[in-house]
């Protein structure tokens, strides 16, 4: 028994700190900068002052159709200052989705990049950089939940 406890403690100690940390609603989102496949790079601190919907994609090979509803949702709320970014993590010969909104490309080579797990996930980040909502799960299935949360959230942001 003692051996098992010791072994588990060793495993816990061996785990990198990042693996134990999970971002949760209410946490400040650290700054990051990522290349975009359809324009200039994007940096989080540059958009402070505006609400941001950050959509983390799972395996995506030219998955534009899946994302179309999210793009329309973000564009329909542009008048409220909402920004929408997709984060694409390429695998093999995957093609990036062709979108009007920025599609950020995660690449381990760039030290300023950030990779969130688990994916897919949708983050609603407040104008002062705090994670207000985190919705994890298949993007098609969770669209209704995201839309409902978005409508409540954006009106709160508008009232602030």
């Amino acid at each position: 028994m003692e051996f098992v406890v010791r072994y588990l403690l060793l495993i816990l100690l061996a785990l990198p700190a990042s693996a134990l940390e999970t971002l949760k609603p209410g946490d400040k989102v650290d700054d990051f900068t990522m290349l975009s496949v359809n324009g200039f790079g994007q940096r989080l601190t540059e958009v402070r002052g505006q609400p941001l919907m950050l959509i983390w994609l799972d395996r995506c090979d030219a998955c534009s159709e899946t994302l179309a509803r999210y793009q329309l949702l973000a564009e329909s709320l542009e008048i409220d200052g909402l920004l929408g970014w997709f984060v694409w993590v390429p695998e093999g010969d995957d093609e990036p989705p062709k979108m009007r909104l920025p599609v950020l490309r995660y690449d381990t080579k760039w030290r300023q990049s950030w990779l969130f797990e688990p994916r897919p996930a949708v983050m609603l980040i407040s104008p002062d950089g705090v994670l207000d909502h985190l919705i994890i799960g298949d993007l098609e299935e969770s669209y209704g939940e995201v839309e409902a949360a978005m409508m409540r959230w954006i009106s709160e942001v508008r009232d602030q």
Partner: protein
Amino acid sequence: MKLFFSVLFLFTCTFANAEDAAIRQDVESVKQSVLELNTDLYQLEKDLLSPATTRAAFHLSLSHGEYFEPLSIELSVDGESQIQHIYTERQVKALRMGAVQPLGNVNLSPGKHTVRAVVRGVDHLGQGRELIAEDIVEKTSKPLLTELVIQDFVERQSARVQLKYW
């Protein structure tokens, strides 16, 4: 008998005091050695990292920028990646307005070093382009101040990047 024990006690105390004094002296000596070692290490660190002898500063500017817009830059010295930067639209606008971007400082030992900068971006037709500047720089004991200048090359409707020294 009492006298014997008194003398023995006094002798033991004196001997113990003498031993304590020797230990204290040893401790003081060790402390002094540690302080000296610390001073030497500090001096060595200063010699190794002194900005005057090892500092190499890299900057970037964009002249006109009609034929090229930077999206990212990677700078390596002697084959080792040292500086990376991803450009946002706002940063490129600032560069177009004449801003000089401090890319970063690198510690270089005196002597010759190969500096390679790869600037990725798009040309005036929206096509992906890569500009490369490679140069051998000689680092002396003075600080090295350099600027990567992205210039339009009007004759070829293109752009190039050059390493300039201040």
